[in-house]
């Protein structure tokens, strides 16, 4: 069962909170922004690229990702007064329940946008791809192909596995944070990521085998 990150506060939680609240690395910034909404900017700058990346990998389009990012931050700003910290010692020193809260908003915004758009990510990869260096075009081309293959493999995963991998690798979240965002237990998230990596490995090695020796052509990926 998922830990109650944002559940109702009971007396026991309240007592524990004063002991562990310092764990949230965003605490000072969040409190400042709660007192004065104009102080929200540092939080925005800190998490803009992460939220945008999440939205981009989910929606597969820059404009849609911009829309989702904008809505996420506007919602976070206007609802910041309702945010309550729930950090635990087990979350680790770098934990941020504000980040979990923000990504839960982002997840909802993105889900809603996907429902509206009725679109699945197509991995255009125009942002992931790097500008070709004229001196090293071949290496860049290989890198670009590798990135495209990796993202295609991730894009073929079921939504929950894909989401977990993006949060782990792109947003560099801990398992506890991903559990908070996805509303699952940490154990379930570990298994989700483990299985997702197996699928990606099968996909990548399969496609590599297909591209590789001519004798292996036609083998199913």
């Amino acid at each position: 069962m998922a830990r109650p990150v944002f559940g109702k506060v009971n007396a026991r939680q309240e007592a524990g909170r004063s002991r562990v609240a310092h764990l949230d690395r965003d605490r000072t910034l969040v409190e400042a922004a709660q007192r004065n909404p104009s102080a929200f900017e540092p939080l925005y700058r800190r998490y803009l690229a992460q939220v945008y990346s999440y939205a981009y990998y989910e929606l597969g389009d820059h404009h849609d990702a911009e829309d989702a990012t904008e809505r996420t931050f506007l919602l976070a700003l206007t609802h910041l007064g309702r945010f309550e910290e729930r950090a635990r010692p087990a979350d680790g020193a770098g934990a941020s329940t504000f980040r979990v809260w923000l990504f839960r908003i982002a997840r909802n915004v993105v889900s809603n946008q996907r429902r509206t758009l009725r679109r699945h990510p197509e991995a255009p990869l125009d942002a992931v791809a790097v500008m070709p260096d004229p001196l090293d075009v071949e290496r860049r081309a290989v890198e670009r192909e590798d990135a495209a293959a990796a993202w295609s493999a991730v894009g073929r995963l079921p939504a929950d596995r894909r989401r977990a991998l993006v949060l782990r690798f792109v947003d560099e979240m801990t398992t506890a944070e991903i559990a908070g965002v996805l509303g699952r237990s940490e154990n379930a998230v570990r298994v989700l990521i483990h299985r997702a990596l197996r699928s990606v490995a099968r996909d990548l090695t399969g496609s590599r085998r297909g591209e590789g020796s001519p004798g292996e052509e036609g083998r199913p990926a």
Partner: protein
Amino acid sequence: MTLPLRDRIEADAVLTDLYLDALLAAQARRATDVPSSTDLDPTIRFAAGRLSSDLARVHPSFRFEERLAARLAEVASRMRLAAAAGGGDMPALADSGVDPALDPAFAPGLDPAADPEGSHLARPLLIGGALTSAALSLAGAAYVAWRRTHPAVPPMARAVRAVAQARLTQGGRPRGLA
């Protein structure tokens, strides 16, 4: 001893998790040596290595970043004004497309159909202004009506009345007149 399948998967998942922690931490400090774990399935190591290098974080354009920063600052200043004017809770964004019921991060009672972030923030001020002007209008109308039924007394008539009243009360010249 062999573990049941479910336990084995969970044990492997824990190993994978530890490996990912080490891998991502090594990348964060730009370490060249990649952590190795002999217990971990090599295919998992391969996939993790590929994803950690190929799934890049995407940055939005500078123009978008600054435009959104300006919009957030504008909304924040409206929120401050609303709070200073006694406007209550922060309203929901109607155009956000988020159903607050979907997420416990949003407290119940938010109206998803409320106005977008701009108009409702000014609503307390608008309501106050409207009430004030309506009250003034009513008072003005009442004053005009009263003046019509109570026509003003000319200054000379007021002076004559004051003199007459003084004579009655003091039996002579009114007080204050030389």
